[in-house]
Structure formats: C-alpha cells, structure tokens
C-alpha cells in the first residue's frame, strides 16, 4: 500500500505517478474517469449502458484510458459507483453515488452548496457541506415525472425532435404551456391535447422542462433542503441548454452548468478512493 501511496503522490507526469479510475455504471449511461495522484482529470468517457454492466464498465474504462493516453497497466486502483457498481468485477472499491457525486461536483466547482442531478431514471438533490461532504439529500421516489425519462418520453416521442435539438427549440418559446399533470402518463395525454390544438412545439418543449424542473425542485423542498447558492445542475438534463433556465426560474436564482455534467459521480469515486488511500497511509482517520 505504501508503494501505491508513493506512486499516488508522485509528481504528475513523473514515471512514478499513478492513475485512479472511477467508473459510474448508471441505468442509462456508464461514465469513466481517470485521474492522477493530484486529482487532475486525464481522461473521461461516456457510453450507453449495456445489458451486461460489467462489460459496460470495462468498455467505459478502456475509453477513458485511451483518451488519457494510458493503459490498464498504469492503473493503481479502480473504484465504482452507480446502480451497477457491484456488477463491475474488477472494482477494488465500491461507494454509493451520492457521496461520490458531491465530492466530484465540489472538485469541478469548488464551493458548491446545492447539487441538482437529473439522470435518466432518478433525480437527486444534495446539500453539500465543506470539502464536498453530504449534509442532506433526497431522491425522487418511483414517480418518473422528476427524471430525464419524463423529458425524453414526452419531448422526443411526442414532438419527434432529436434530443440535442430540444434545448434550442425550448429556448425559442415565449409562452410555455402549463402542464397540470404530475404523472408522466397523464402529462402525455395533456400534451397530445395541446398538439391537437396547434400549440407550437417550442411552447410544449419548454412547458415539459418547466414541469420537470418544478417537480424536481419540490423534491428538495419536501425534504426541507435549503437551496443555497451556488446551485450546480448535473446529469444528462444539463446538456439541454434550456434546462438551466427552467431550473433558475423555479428557484429564483442562477444555476451553474459544468462543462461535463455527467462526470461528477465517476470523478468523485476516483477522488474518494485517492483520499482514502492517502488517509490510510498517513494513519489519519480511517473508515471501516
């Protein structure tokens, strides 16, 4: 272990420098990050999660290594998180994603106080303390209305617009529709009514985003999470240029977007693995 520590804390780029990989195997996408001993991101990949989660982890990791110009042999430690975290056979450290998410987001945007993460299948609100620790969190229950799935189903299917064009489309709206239905199933029916009535697609697209944002923000409010700034929006939804606006409108405050909004959890698990290694070696506080 002390060799690993030495490697880990060697100067970046030196021959002794080690690599830590974090792999986030989600229900929709799998992300992998490689960092050096200083926590500098060297490589990142995102792929669609396959039926075989272990295979997904391997493929993503290979992609991240390739983008860093590194190989398997350079790896010091592999850590995993996300729903498929235990399916990744070669993982050496497994951590649940919320703590990873907080750590990773804090690294990418130091001083973050609130994280809103909207993934394909779930949403999370995380109140962040010092050093990226989690003060409180809440997740949606099984309702899909506060997830990316809501947006994907309603926007892409009903409006027949590719996902990457939905954000620019929504931004053109000046009069978003109000969707009263909380449930994805009934919202679909409501949207069909709007389409039949000739409502412009951009108004529907922005209306869907606003409905989703309202639902997600209320998850945190129900758990008495204070939305303190800076608020960072992560997850696939943050790739939608209109999403930040929808959330900002709901919150009445600015929302920060990351360059790679799907990276935090994978980055966070790698960083925590690095933190733990350093802590163990220096006989600091240990965690069972």
């Amino acid at each position: 272990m002390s060799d690993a520590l030495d490697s880990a804390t060697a100067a970046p780029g030196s021959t002794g420098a080690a690599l830590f990989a974090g792999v986030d195997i989600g229900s929709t996408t799998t992300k992998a990050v490689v960092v050096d001993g200083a926590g500098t991101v060297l490589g990142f990949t995102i792929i669609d999660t396959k039926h075989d989660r272990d295979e997904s982890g391997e493929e993503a990791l290979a992609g991240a290594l390739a983008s860093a110009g590194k190989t398997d042999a350079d790896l010091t430690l592999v850590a995993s998180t996300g729903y498929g975290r235990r399916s990744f056979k070669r993982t050496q450290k497994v951590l649940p994603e919320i703590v990873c998410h907080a750590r990773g987001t804090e690294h990418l945007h130091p001083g973050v106080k609130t994280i809103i993460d909207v993934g394909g299948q779930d949403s999370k609100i995380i109140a962040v303390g010092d050093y990226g620790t989690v003060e409180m969190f809440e997740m949606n229950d099984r309702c899909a209305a506060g997830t990316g799935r809501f947006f994907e189903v309603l926007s892409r299917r009903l409006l027949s617009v590719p996902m990457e064009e939905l954000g620019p489309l929504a931004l053109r709206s000046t009069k978003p529709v109000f969707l009263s239905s909380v449930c994805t199933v009934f919202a679909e029916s409501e949207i069909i009514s709007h389409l039949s009535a000739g409502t412009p697609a951009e108004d529907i697209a922005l209306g869907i985003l606003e409905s989703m944002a309202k639902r997600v923000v209320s998850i945190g409010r129900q758990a008495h999470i204070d939305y303190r700034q800076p608020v960072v929006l992560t997850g696939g939804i943050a790739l939608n240029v209109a999403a930040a606006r929808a959330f900002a409108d709901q919150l009445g405050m600015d929302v920060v977007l990351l360059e790679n909004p799907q990276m935090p959890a994978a980055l966070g698990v790698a960083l925590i693995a690095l933190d733990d290694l350093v802590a163990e070696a220096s006989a600091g506080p240990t965690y069972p």
Partner: protein
Amino acid sequence: MDDATRELAQLATDRPAVLRDLKAAGKKIVPYIGHFVPEPLLYAAGVEPYLICRGGEPEPPEAVLDDMLRFLNPLARSMAGFHLMGLDPVLPLADLIVASQPECHTQRMAEYLELQGFPVFKVGIPPNWDRAYAGEYYFTELEQLKAKLEELTGKPIADEAVREYIGYFNQINALLRRIDALRKKDAPPLGGYDFIHLNHQSFFVEPQVAIEKLTAIADSLEGAPGKFAAKSPRILLAGHAVAVGDYLMMKGLEDAGAVIVTEMMDEGMQWYRWDTAVEGDPLRNLWRAKYLDKVPVNIFQPAWKVRFEHMKELIADYRVDGVVWYQLMYDEIYDMECTVVTKWLREMKVPLLKLETSYEYSREATGPLNTKIESFVESLRRGR
C-alpha cells in the same frame, strides 16, 4: 446464533401449527391487531393470542384491491391480503379477532375482515388522550373486551390471572430493556435487525417461554464481543411499524455498515420501555399503561411535540448519528409527522433519511433503496 436465539426463532415459526393443535383440543384462538389490545388480558382469559402484523411482500397488498382502496397503507392491506391469498395460517382458525382501532387504515381493514365473515371485536382508541372522557371510553372498551372474552370461553377472568400475566409481560419488557441497553455500547453485540426479530418472536411464544429464552439470550449477549465496529454510524429508526417479515430495509442499513441502536415505532414492537403496575385493579393498570403512561402514538392529539422530546432523549441516550424514518406509503399522518420532524432535526443538525415503502422490492425498487441507504450511511461515516 446461540441455541436460545435459534430455539426462540423456531418456536415462533412453529406457533401456527401449535395453535392448530390447541384449537383441535378445544382452545379458543384469538388473533389480535395492534398494541392497544392488552396481551395479559387475552392470556388470562385462557385464549391463545396471535399478533397479526405481517408485511413486507408485494402481493398481499395488491390482492385486496378488488375491494380495498389502493390508497390505504400496505400494512393494513397486507393483513387482509395474506388471508385472501391463503397464506395466513392463523386467521382461518380464529374464534374471534380483536382489533384495536386507532386510525382509519386499520378501521377499514377490520371492516373488510368483517365482510369476509370473521367475527371482529373492535377496541376503539380515542385520540384526544388529554381528555378524561376519552380515556374513560377506552377503559369501557377494555371492560367490554373482558366481557366478550368471558362470553367466548364461558369462564370469568380472575384479576389474579391478569396480574400474573402482567407480571410476565413486565419481565419480558425488562429483558428486552436489558438486551436493548447493550446497544448503547460503542461496539454493540447486536443491532436493530436482531433486536426486532427478538421483539417479533416474543409475540409468538407463550410469555413464560419468552422469558426463559430472552433470559438466556440476554446472558449470552452480555458477555459477547461487539458485532459492529466501534465507529459504525448509529441509527435511530422511527415511524409507524416494521411488520413481521419486512426486514429488507433493516438488513440493508446494517449491511451497509450502520448499526440500528434504537427504534421509535408505534406498532410491531413490544412497548418494552413502559411497565404495567401489578397491584390494584389490573384492568385499570393496563388502561393506564397503554393509554397514558407512555409516549403517545402519532394519531393521538396533541402528540408530535411530546414524541419529538422522546426522540431527542433517544438520540442523546444512544448517541445517535442519524435518523431513518420508515414510512408506509399512503400513511398520511406519519408522512405529515415526518415533515415536521425533518425540520426539527435539521435545526438540531441531525441527519435524517426518509424511506417510503409499498412493500415492493423488485429489482427496480431495491436499486434506489440501496443507493439511498448506502449513501446515507456513507455520508454519516464521512461526516463524523
């Protein structure tokens, strides 16, 4: 697992078969619902009681949906649903079901059982516990229950017999307190998962047997090494009920590295923190112990401020790091209390995790459940 624990578990499992034999021999079988039904009175009457509080499986709550509203809590629906699916070995033996009726979920479930043809004796629980007239109503209900039991068996219930069983249940409470106190240690020899099993099992064996087994278990545990590491995050589990069989959540918490050091549950656990007086009128003593001399259950009014004071005491006594609120879906008054408790715990800077269950534990449901549990435990660990 030591012999006494194993034996207690086996005896509890075998209880339905024993009841079948007892019924064949002429004994009256009286399943009961809720802890406002005093067990000492049932035993003193010479009947064979059996707690109905089973849950944790998704099919039984669904099985009753032809006639029961989807928006009732899954425990109430389970209690009827297991029977409807032919999975309840005891209800078909019932000579009488005694159902305490503190809130509308169990009320409607008891009515459903009546429609299924069961004889149900209802014990009404007025929620205005600070009013003398309300307390007297519950006392009258206990008197009527006593009369009903006497009618069922054809024998009067002697005060001495009730006192004797009060004594046994006080002993069970004392033993549970003794075992529970071990969870105050830094490295407890048992957690909530084991403790709740002992609670549940104590309902399904005769009190003298429970005393014998729990004594052996307590003796064994007092000398046992810690089962949990000294720095395991310490959890208070609060809510309405952990049903018999609904253990996934508790196991998940302790598998994730936490230890459940204490509970604040209204149903599904012995009210072991409070004893019943033995001297004097035993019925009045049971009434007092159940209605007045304990922390009020949620439905009572007013209750939440008093309950929170108790929660604060538990947090201090057991050095709790975080609270897990276990919420039955559609249990509206517990949901509301959780919102209030969330705010108050926030002000105290005590982390809280709310877990809602509909007893649906498919792969899709356990993924998010495990994420929540593990993330909470991890955040407690790192926040220390």
